[in-house]
């Protein structure tokens, strides 16, 4: 693949998915990046047979992000239960303003 093609892919596919993970699912920048990469790994196997690839990959991303948030919430609850002094945080609240690298 040539560099312009990869730039186009980044602009047209990767960035919108990152933004969705970041804003809609309130993931931190690093988590959003991981989720998009995971979605791509699943897509390599299956996307060519999808009827509507755009709708398909967004669904995959949404599922991964939902699972991620659910696990984070469960982990947070368990930590609050078992670790003295740990403060529970709701999954939807986390992430967006974390990370430190964002302006």
């Amino acid at each position: 693949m040539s560099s312009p093609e990869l730039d186009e892919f980044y602009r047209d596919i990767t960035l919108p998915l990152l933004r969705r993970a970041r804003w809609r699912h309130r993931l931190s920048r690093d988590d959003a990046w991981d989720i998009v990469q995971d979605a791509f790994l699943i897509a390599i196997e299956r996307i060519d047979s999808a009827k509507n690839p755009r709708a398909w990959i967004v669904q995959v991303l949404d599922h991964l992000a939902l699972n991620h948030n659910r696990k984070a919430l469960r982990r947070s609850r368990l930590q609050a239960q078992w670790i003295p002094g740990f403060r529970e945080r709701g999954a939807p609240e986390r992430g967006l303003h974390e990370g430190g690298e964002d302006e």
Partner: protein
Amino acid sequence: MSNVILSSEMIAAWIRGSARGGNSYRTRWESPAFEYVDCQDRQSDGRVRSDVAPNIEREDIPDLGYALREQLLGDPPLTSVGTATRSFEFLARLDWPESEFSERSDVLADIAYLLSVRTRAQNDYPTAQHWEARCVQLLLETEPSGTFLRNRAENNDSRADWRFLARPAVFLGLCHQLERERNHRPLVARELVTSLFETSGTLMVPTEELCYLRASLAHSAGVATFHLGEFEESALWLDKARRLFRQTSYPLPFLVSVAGTELISKHARYQWNEVLEVVGPLICIAKKLGMTRQTATLRVLRAHTLKEVSRHEEALREFQAVDSEHVDLDPTLHSSLLIAMAETQYMLGDLEGAAGSCGRAAVAATRSGAPLIWGFLHSLTGQVLRDSGRVEEAIQAFDRSIAAYASVGIAGLQAYGMILSAEMLLGLGRWQQGVPRLLAAISILRAMKIDRKVAVAVELLRAAINSGLAPSQQAVRELRQVLGRLPR
């Protein structure tokens, strides 16, 4: 937009490349977006602050959009309708970068939804309806919600996860689809409402919004079951809709809408005087609230009812007035109006006028696509042909009408069409076609407890027995036994 870029080959190449190059994604627009909204809140004259907005680079627009959305949705009680409207217009005007996903529509749909809720809370029915329609229109351009809603509308099936319904805008989209489907595919609409009622429990919305969405579902179920002739079930759903609408911030227009449906149901049950008593005041309220569509619907209902009580000239005047005053009627209501107008013209002996209205009705029915409307139209054509002595063609028209009603499960009207065509078949001496059709109609009507039409069919059956057209004495005996078991 092609799908070539979204292929396994491109994704694999990207992963290989990105592993080397890392990423540079930043959400730089959080703070400026919040600042922008704050500026908007302080602006009393509605002007857009030029010191924030023009500095946006094209590639940052989606992040700004999401940030504004976040800000507006994050604390709706503090967001004025004016701010949200200006933000919507501001974002809609921006030149968003093209991508494989319509982020512009995605962001704007949520703001439009917020605006629909907020304007409803301000008792502004027309504006709330405008924003609802805008929200649904934008949603259809997004993925995966757009595909989900389109699949549902076209094939009655979708592989999309029901978890998408947890987004209130998507749920609103489904409620809007049901407003059409309750007239087009009442059986499907009723089933969908039942499952959506359960799913609505997962919606993360305030109680007021939940009540509004559920009330809308219940209203659609009330209309669908009324079309199916299930009047008792329809009354229960409409009662539920009324109770839920009462728990919303601005129930009045929606209660008017539910009352309108109840009147249509009464009309179908021959309670015409009751309809005429109530429909006038209801039209006045609907007009005062800016409910254009409901006003037109109620006026058509009044005209229909005037026709039924033989006040044909008044009915025709009302039909013609609605036809000329409401130029943007939706095709289903318009075709229904034109069919009833043609019927009235025919009753008044204006055959040319009736033919003209029928022609226009066919055009509107094609635009509408509702099988129910085609059922009405074929039935009227059958009556006109029958009265003109063109009986064979009339039977064919009734057959088309019966098929249209049967295709959407409207059994009551299907059975009525069967009685009308059986009557003609018997008149032509075609006992072997007419009698089974009559028996089938009686069976449907008895199951639905529509006694008035059962009585008509039974009388026809008696006439058939006495006509001397029976193929054998055995057939007459069997039919007498059937008749003996039927109610008098």
